[in-house]
């Protein structure tokens, strides 16, 4: 065993049920810097892990409304004042004609925000992660379930944490190098 502190511990589980159970154990033990990785969404896992509700909708709402308002004013300004042009005999300020673009920009700004905010909030892009060094972790996109606990966690103790993970039903526990 190396004398340097590992980056963290990686534990492998065989199915969603044991993983969910293990997550509740880790949560109960009071760990904070940890995460679970699964090949597919496991229902209810976020509740067991005690993850707070996402703030993503707020970002989407604020930017969506901003984009929406901006586009409405921009069109009014462009069509009615900066570059007045009569189209089809309609008045310069023709609200119905603005609606399609207004709508599209609302959708576009909301979608792009949802996409980008999702990346930022999840710390992406992340070209390297210590877990990538593990051979076992390759199966996270296939049929295995994992829990990672970082050594940064105040409650982290290599031996004790290892015991906890093993007791919670892990079939494999590895140390991850930083």
């Amino acid at each position, binding site marked *: 065993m190396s004398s340097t502190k590992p980056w963290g511990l990686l534990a492998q589980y065989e199915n*969603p*049920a044991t993983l969910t159970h293990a997550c509740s154990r880790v949560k109960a033990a009071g760990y904070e810097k940890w995460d679970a990785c699964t090949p597919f*969404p496991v*229902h*209810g896992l*976020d509740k067991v892990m005690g993850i707070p509700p996402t703030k993503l*909708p707020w970002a989407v*709402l604020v930017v969506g409304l901003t984009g929406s308002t901006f586009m409405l004013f921009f069109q009014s300004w462009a069509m009615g004042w900066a570059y007045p042009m009569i189209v*089809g*005999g309609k008045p310069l300020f023709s609200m*119905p*004609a603005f*609606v*399609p673009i207004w709508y599209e920009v609302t959708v576009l700004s909301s979608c792009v925000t949802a996409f980008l905010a999702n990346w930022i909030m999840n710390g992406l892009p992340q070209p390297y992660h210590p877990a990538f060094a593990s051979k076992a972790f390759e199966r996270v996109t296939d049929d295995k379930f994992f829990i990672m606990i970082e050594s940064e966690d105040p409650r982290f103790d290599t031996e004790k944490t290892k015991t906890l993970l093993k007791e919670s039903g892990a079939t494999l526990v590895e140390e991850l190098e930083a």
Partner: protein
Amino acid sequence: MSHAIEKPTDITIPSTSLFAKLPMIGGAMAVIGLGATLASAFGEHKARAMFAYLFGFEVALTVALGSLAWLLINHLVKAGWHIVLRRIAEAAVMTLPVFAFLFIPIAALGFHELYPWTHEMDEILARKQWFLTPGFFFGRAALYFAIWSVLAWVLYSNSTKMDSEGDAKKRESMTVRLITVSAPGIALFALSSSFAAIDWVMGLMPHWYSTIFGVYFFAVSILSFNAFLALVSMGLQKAGVLKTAITTEHFHDLGKYVYGYGVFWAYIAFSQFILIWYANIPEETVFYMTRVEGGWQYVSYGLPVLHFFVPFFFLVSRHVKRSRVGLAIGCVWVLVMHVVDLYWIIMPNAGLHGEGSHGPHLDVSYLDVTSLVGFVGVFLAAFGFFLNKNKVLAINDPRLEESLVHENF
């Protein structure tokens, strides 16, 4: 999950609940409402009474057609989440054959008063004459009702038969049959409901045409039905039925449907408007021109705000959709706007033609109320009858477990 899930046992409606009395209450509403409306149709206000009748007819019919669309879509995509709600939709879909009888007064009594093409003629109508003849019109109506009734019966009977079917293999094949029927069924539904909207509602103004009108009625139908379904589900839980089967997750999904189809309604309504507004052809603009005077302008300007923006911002939050009270308020609001929307589509045509004709004029009559009460009564009576007839849950459906543990993210 791997462990077995217990099937709910609270799946029959208690005889003391309001739902058990629905056929009685609805029947009473139907007799009073339709009686008063049709009695007036024999008096001097015949035309007005028939318009009120058509308005009530369309309000209830669109909800019933919405249930058919809802079932067909869910079968076709092999949905699993909706199983706990499906029996409610199946009770609603069985109201469709009733509308064939309710159509008789429109065909026999108010045909002349409602549809100007029956007695007026000009160059435009001459070109449409091959389509707008009484024989073809009645034939088409018969075909629509035949399609809807057969589809409703197939969906309903295959599902309810499953309740007492002990053989799992047979239940599988029944499920497959439901899916197989839904594929051609949804095409037939799309065509028949579009043409029904064109025949019965667009025909009120035979010079005018809008190619998106059928889609508009689909939007109206599926939106109102989802709101109705959410409200009935809450009511059933209050009555002590399906208390654990229908969860917040299902209500959340219904809320998403009400929200999404509300946006869809606005999208379609605006698509219809902007093309007509841009092109500015008198033949097309006549629809909106009759709705910007005589008091109708307030409804016309109110609809985008009250039917779209208000529910849009109200239901946008996940927390509102997941709260019973929030969703109930949203659904009641949507259903009220559904009534206003159809009133706005149908009523401005009243009094435009025939003797003593006048310009469009917003003039709510007690007949509109009696007609609405009557048709809501008929719908609820038939709906209540079929709801009480069976278990309120498709207890033997192969995907019931999937539905019981359904969860959103």
